[in-house]
């Protein structure tokens, strides 16, 4: 892949998947943390 400075960025699919995976991991991970630390009602 190449930086955009000289035209169209080639490739970079790995970065795309990483961003989406990380977004979901963060949200679901924090959700799990919130649910686990809710403690006794």
């Amino acid at each position, binding site marked *: 892949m190449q930086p*955009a400075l000289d035209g169209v*960025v080639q490739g970079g699919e790995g970065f795309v998947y990483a961003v989406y995976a990380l977004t979901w991991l963060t949200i679901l991970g924090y959700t799990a943390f919130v649910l686990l630390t809710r403690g006794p009602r």
Partner: protein
Amino acid sequence: MNDKLWFVPLVLGLVALAVAHYGGLVMAPTEAMMGEVGRIMYAHVPTAWTGMLMGLVAFVFACGSLATSKDGWDIGTHASVEVATLLCTLLCIQGALWAKPTWGVYWDWDPRLTSTAILVLSFAGVLILRALVHDQGKRRIVTGVTTILAFVNVPITYYSVKWWNTLHQDMSSGSSIADEFKWSLYLGWLAMMLIAVGLVGLRSAGLMARLRREHGETALPKAKQKIELLAEKGGA
């Protein structure tokens, strides 16, 4: 009890986010300049909007907390600072993952990136300080003051860094999203907002329960019987 209501926006948001991401990741056309990397925008832009809005929410909660001295506002501040920190951290990493293939570097002194990172640092400081202060009255004030200043600092930092950078070439982020796929962006933003609201609500409920356990109202003890002294020496 009604804490469970917070699951409604959370679950709705998660479903909506899945749809929005499917749109961005699969359905949208390849971007003209950024190629496949342009798809990062469909995840990145909603995170940015939501992260900053949660910062604003934290700021509003903090103002309310200082103005009213009510624990509810303070708990809301804690929960929203936490969610804002999380989203802005995610935002920075997403930004870096976008910058590498586009600009060739992970980090650039872009005003948006820098001021977001500064917000993450100061909000993290707020959370750490909160963990160290145990007296609830003091913790409320300390959290309120630091949250307000951390948020007010964001625009100042943004413009300072922008100015600092003027000699540096202005890299446009060129988020030229195809018009017919704008819906994915807005749906993604709505989804993130619903998720954030649900999480702040659930987290607040958990924090409130803990506060009640540790500092909660306990009934004022009944007055004990007064001691009666008998007239003669020796007493009771």
